[in-house]
């Protein structure tokens, strides 16, 4: 079974600064997807960014980028120019490819990191 570990229960950053959230995972599969989700107090999980394991290039979405190290099984999220609206819980998640999982593609989540933005 796959596991996802987020070792930072809480992180704090000044507005406009850069912050990096850490995530490591364990899997024996070679083909999979990794995600970062944001969960504000409204509880809805919002997809921030995703990475396909077969792609060496790190994904970017505006102010959000990842550092994907497949051999080290590490997948960190960098948020540049932090804004007050970025404050939320951030979850790292893993998903098997549908080919290797027989169609089962539910997400495996870490415990989350609470991101605080200081004005």
């Amino acid at each position, binding site marked *: 079974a796959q596991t*996802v570990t987020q070792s930072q229960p809480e992180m704090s950053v000044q507005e406009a600064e850069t912050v990096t959230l850490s995530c490591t995972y364990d899997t024996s599969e070679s083909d999979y997807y990794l995600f970062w989700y944001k969960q504000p107090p*409204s*509880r*809805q*999980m*919002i*997809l921030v960014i*995703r990475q396909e394991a077969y792609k060496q290039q790190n994904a970017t979405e505006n102010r959000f980028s990842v550092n994907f190290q497949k051999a080290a099984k590490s997948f960190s999220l960098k948020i540049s120019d932090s804004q007050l609206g970025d404050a939320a819980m951030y*979850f790292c*998640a893993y998903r098997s*490819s*549908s080919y290797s999982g027989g*169609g*089962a*593609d*539910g*997400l*495996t*989540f*870490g*415990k*989350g990191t609470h991101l605080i933005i200081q004005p």
Partner: protein
Amino acid sequence: EAGVAQSPRYKIIEKRQSVAFWCNPISGHATLYWYQQILGQGPKLLIQFQNNGVVDDSQLPKDRFSAERLKGVDSTLKIQPAKLEDSAVYLCASSSRINQPQHFGDGTRLSIL
């Protein structure tokens, strides 16, 4: 496009009572998921449907939890009887098909007294 709809938003019951949650996925989405999120943890998959068939229910406590997706659209998740440890947020998600991004609803917060 309307998002994933869930109801109720909150539910409070006593232990050993029954409860049901409802989910309406995004129109046309064939795949539907139920997750349980206990306070301080990430969501855990309970069950995945593809149309009205079950793809994965390996983490569903089948002695007390049941779920159905009749006609391959709406879904209900039931707990009978509820235990204190079932206190959690129950999230529903849908995707257009397997291997596509999952869109989440706002969840139902269940409190067991």
